[in-house]
């Protein structure tokens, strides 16, 4: 009861920051390689709010632009994946013939890591946005399609019978029963998918395109700006968290009937 007033979630991060700070200050780590938390914060601040200059500090003031580059790629790739994966997942889960036709190929291709697709993507799409979109779309496609088809397959038989005895045809059953029943799984797939999308965008930008947070990360590493590298890691973490929260909140609005069920 009293535990509610203590911000428990802050304890571990503060502790980790403290250890990090101490490790740099006490020279437990090699000097000049790992920046102190305060230094990262300062670099991050200048990266966001600093005036853009070309000469001395190439990162100053470029954060928003790079976040927008990466964010747009994630959004486009993820939307593309969802647009293909949700309908396909529904058909795979619903129709045994479609499942037999498509499912084995999906399961065979799924274990191929996104990183392994990189050379292929560059060879086919070149060092352009298309490469990044391909990798992001492919990466988030799998969790969405797999979860969607599982959700569809798990539809309660009794609800299908109920709909049919009330006169529902195949179309109505799919739209009014199967789809809402699979929505919780679909949202799980979307949340996993957006996580993969952020992984894929960083990988793609590190190698296949020349802008965005992944590009900054790799570039900063090359010129020895570990402070920027760490600030990029925090940025990606934050963006991933925010996009997950957006999907979570959307699911809570759409699945209001389900939150009622849990409280019952």
């Amino acid at each position, binding site marked *: 009861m009293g535990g509610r007033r203590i911000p428990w979630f802050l304890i571990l991060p503060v502790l980790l920051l403290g250890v990090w700070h101490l490790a740099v200050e006490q020279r437990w780590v090699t000097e000049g390689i790992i920046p102190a938390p305060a230094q990262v914060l300062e670099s991050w601040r200048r990266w966001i709010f600093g005036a853009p200059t070309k000469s001395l500090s190439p990162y100053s003031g470029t954060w928003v632009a790079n976040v927008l580059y990466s964010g747009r790629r994630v959004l486009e790739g993820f939307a593309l994946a969802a647009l293909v994966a949700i309908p396909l997942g529904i058909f795979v889960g619903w129709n045994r013939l479609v499942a037999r036709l498509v499912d084995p190929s999906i399961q065979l291709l799924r274990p191929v890591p996104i990183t392994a697709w990189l050379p292929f993507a560059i060879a086919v799409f070149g060092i352009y946005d298309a490469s990044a979109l391909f990798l992001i779309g492919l990466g988030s496609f799998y969790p969405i399609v797999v979860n969607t088809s599982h959700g569809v397959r798990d539809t*309660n038989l*009794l*609800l299908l*019978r*109920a*709909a*049919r*005895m*009330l*006169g*529902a045809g195949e179309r*109505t059953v799919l739209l*009014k*029963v199967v789809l*809402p*029943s699979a*929505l919780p799984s679909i949202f799980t797939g979307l949340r996993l998918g957006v996580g993969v999308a952020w992984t894929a965008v960083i990988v793609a930008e590190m190698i296949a395109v020349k802008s965005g947070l992944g590009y900054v990360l790799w570039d900063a590493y090359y010129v020895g700006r570990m402070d920027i590298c760490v600030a990029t890691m925090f940025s990606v973490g934050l963006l991933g968290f925010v996009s997950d929260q957006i999907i979570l909140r959307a699911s809570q609005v759409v*699945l*209001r*009937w*389900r939150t*009622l*069920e849990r*409280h*019952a």
Partner: protein
Amino acid sequence: MPEPARRPATAPVAELRGVFKEFSGRSGRLVALEGIDLRIEPKEFAAVLGPSGCGKSTLLNMVAGFDRPTRGEVLFRGQPVSRPDPRRSVVFQEAALFPWFNVLDNITFGPKTCGVAAADYGPRVEALLEQVGLRGFERHYPAELSGGMKQRVGIARVLVMEPELLLMDEPFGSLDAQTRSVMQELLLSVWERHHQAVLFITHDVEEALLLADTVCVMTARPGRIKKRLSVDLPRPRPLEATTSPRFNELKREVLGLIREESLRAASDEPR
């Protein structure tokens, strides 16, 4: 036994002729139903009474069109049953409401799906909400309702379709005793008003005798109809009917049949 040659003027709503149902399981073939002959006349409230696993739900599923017989015929209005149809709608044991629709949307699912105009079903829905006691709960979601309330919705969404045959698969089986008798009373009052034919599956002797015009007592696996009894208790039947001498006489007869059956089953049991 009804002779096909001397068919009564009114055709039965539903008819099962020599129905067998077998399932192939791990331990070979399982005969669920054996030689079922059953007629349900218009306005008849027919109960099928039997122990669990006697195939009585399978029987209902075949009339509903969810399942097909291995042999024999299931007819509705003289036509073979091939698929589910709102004219033969089902009240399930678990109310099987759509959890993402509120009470009103659950009840209007059928008419909307079948393209009935809102002006047509609107007054029917209003009347039903009143009859089954759901007034004020229209915007509630199934998760917010008790078992009894859910089953009221289950009954209303089926009655709004004005079915010719109401199929009820142990609809009150998972309710507590008090709620169950409230629901039995409710069903009787609603049925007195609509008077459609009913096929009611139950394992509760008192429930069958209180509600039905005829009770078919089934045997344990393989399921056969052991005896068909007429329940000649006057209607409308209040709950107090269960204490009348005639009720007890009928109950004694049914219990005797069931006891006979369980003794036979016990002696047949190989293990």
